[in-house]
């Protein structure tokens, strides 16, 4: 099927397709990181994850409006402010949700799933009531639009690069937070042995609350970033939820590295398949592949071997 193309076309396509895969990879990682923190560290299934992302997107939308009206001179930089605000808003909502809901449902992961699904319905309707049923358009500063031509045929989307850099940055932050900070140590202590962690003076309730909050906050940042590539509407969050869960589960719930590896695997297979097959079939085959591998390795790609 490659006969019709010249060599240089093929190389550039390969390069761009690889890049498309990398963008998809970054998107999946961004989506999944927040969920991986919450699911992996707390065992809580947050079905409202998509809605936390959309909260970030709406915050970005509002910030853009605000800058347009009051600070047009600083509009070029609003996106960074927006991401910060998105994090804070989602974090705050996450902490609130943990406080009035999740903490009562520990050790009942399937119930958290149902309760957070209920939460997602409420949030969707809330967005619809506040922002209207229609999608909102988030205006981006000019420098974030368009592409950067590497060669005559290879062009790199700037927002793609932005998403990749952001993903790298967030992953690094999460890594530092979880594995290099005192707080991260406490979180891991709570995961491994809750009563013991409590006994040595770690405030487990506080750790849970902030873990949940940070997971949601990361989702908010992801949502903010997604205004560059996707839609912002009351129900947009639902588009992401299945993919996100599969990435986390496929990666092995308790391993952040696993999440990243699984995002890589899924994104590359998806974008490769998309090139040869129709979009629908590519999606079906990717999902089947993931389900199939999960059957062979139920613990995911990177689960720790645990001694009974």
């Amino acid at each position, binding site marked *: 099927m490659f006969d019709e193309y010249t060599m240089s076309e093929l190389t550039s396509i390969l390069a761009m397709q690889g890049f498309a895969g990398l963008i998809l990879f970054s998107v999946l990682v961004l989506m999944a990181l927040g969920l991986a923190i919450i699911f992996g560290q707390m065992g809580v299934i947050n079905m409202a994850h998509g809605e936390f992302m959309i909260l970030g997107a709406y915050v970005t939308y509002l910030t853009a409006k605000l800058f347009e009206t009051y600070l047009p001179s600083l509009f070029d930089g609003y996106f960074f402010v927006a991401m910060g605000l998105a994090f804070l808003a989602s974090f705050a909502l996450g902490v609130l949700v943990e406080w009035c809901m999740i903490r009562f449902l520990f050790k009942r992961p399937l119930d958290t799933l149902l309760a957070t699904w209920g939460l997602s319905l409420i949030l969707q309707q809330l967005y619809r009531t506040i922002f209207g049923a229609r999608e909102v358009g988030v205006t981006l500063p000019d420098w974030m639009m368009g592409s950067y031509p590497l060669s005559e045929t290879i062009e790199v989307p700037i927002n793609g690069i932005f998403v990749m850099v952001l993903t790298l940055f967030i992953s690094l932050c999460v890594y530092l937070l979880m594995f290099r900070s005192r707080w991260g140590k406490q979180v891991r202590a709570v995961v491994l042995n809750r009563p013991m962690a409590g006994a040595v003076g770690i405030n487990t309730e506080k750790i849970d609350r902030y873990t949940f909050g940070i997971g949601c906050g990361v989702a908010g940042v992801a949502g903010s970033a997604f205004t560059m590539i996707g839609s912002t509407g009351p129900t947009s969050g639902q588009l992401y939820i299945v993919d996100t869960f599969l990435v986390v589960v496929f990666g092995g719930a308790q391993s952040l590295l696993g999440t990243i590896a699984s995002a890589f695997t899924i994104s590359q297979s998806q974008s490769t398949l998309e090139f040869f097959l129709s979009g629908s079939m590519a999606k079906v085959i990717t999902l089947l592949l993931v389900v199939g591998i999960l059957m062979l390795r139920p613990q995911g790609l990177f689960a*720790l*071997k*645990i*001694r009974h």
Partner: protein
Amino acid sequence: MSIKANDFVLEVEGLTVSFDGFKAVNDLSFYVNEGEIRVIIGPNGAGKTTVLDLICGRTQATTGSIKFRGKELTRMKEHEIVHTGVGRKFQNPSIYDDLTVFENLEISYPRGRSVFGALAFKRDKEVIREVEATAETIFLKDDLDKQAGLLSHGQKQWLEIGMLLIQKPDLLMLDEPVAGMSVAERKKTADLLNRITEGRSVLVVEHDMQFVEDIAHRVTVMHQGKVLSEGSMTRVKNDPKVIEVYLGH
């Protein structure tokens, strides 16, 4: 090894299991005689529970073999191992809290173990008789209709032992059967064990030395996944290697 295979109920040879490179059990071999009560002791992390896990199929061995009455267990599924006659009690009492004592024992009664067997299962006189007899053995005759979750900790331990008994296993494996029991309950349990071991072999993991002395025919001391010493309690107690490990611990 010049000993003939069929002399032993259980033969463990060259057993090794590693978790991500860490060898929890390392080239372990031991043999259990017919009718013997064998106790495995050792400091924390010596691999005692892992040995039980390996025998009953809960953990897959990396290499080595486990033979029960000449049958290789390492490739069998848990329930198949149970069907060959191996019973296992867990460290924490593992019973069905939502069912009554009667139902707990009834489920453990070895009949109707397939899906359709269970569908066709009838609670006939024989079942009731067996359950009641077992309940009597484990001091729970008066609590048959009580929900198991409401039993005391010691009673739960007994109930689990009862659930094993009703399976009529040839090899009984007990993981710390007296942990968390009062002194009186310990005594009662030791009696219980001595009574029920008639006609079967027993493998026990235990920390309580007094209890071990009460019941053990022979003792295997494990350290870092290997056999450190083996023999009668007296012999083991005086083994300098054992003393060093325990004092150093």
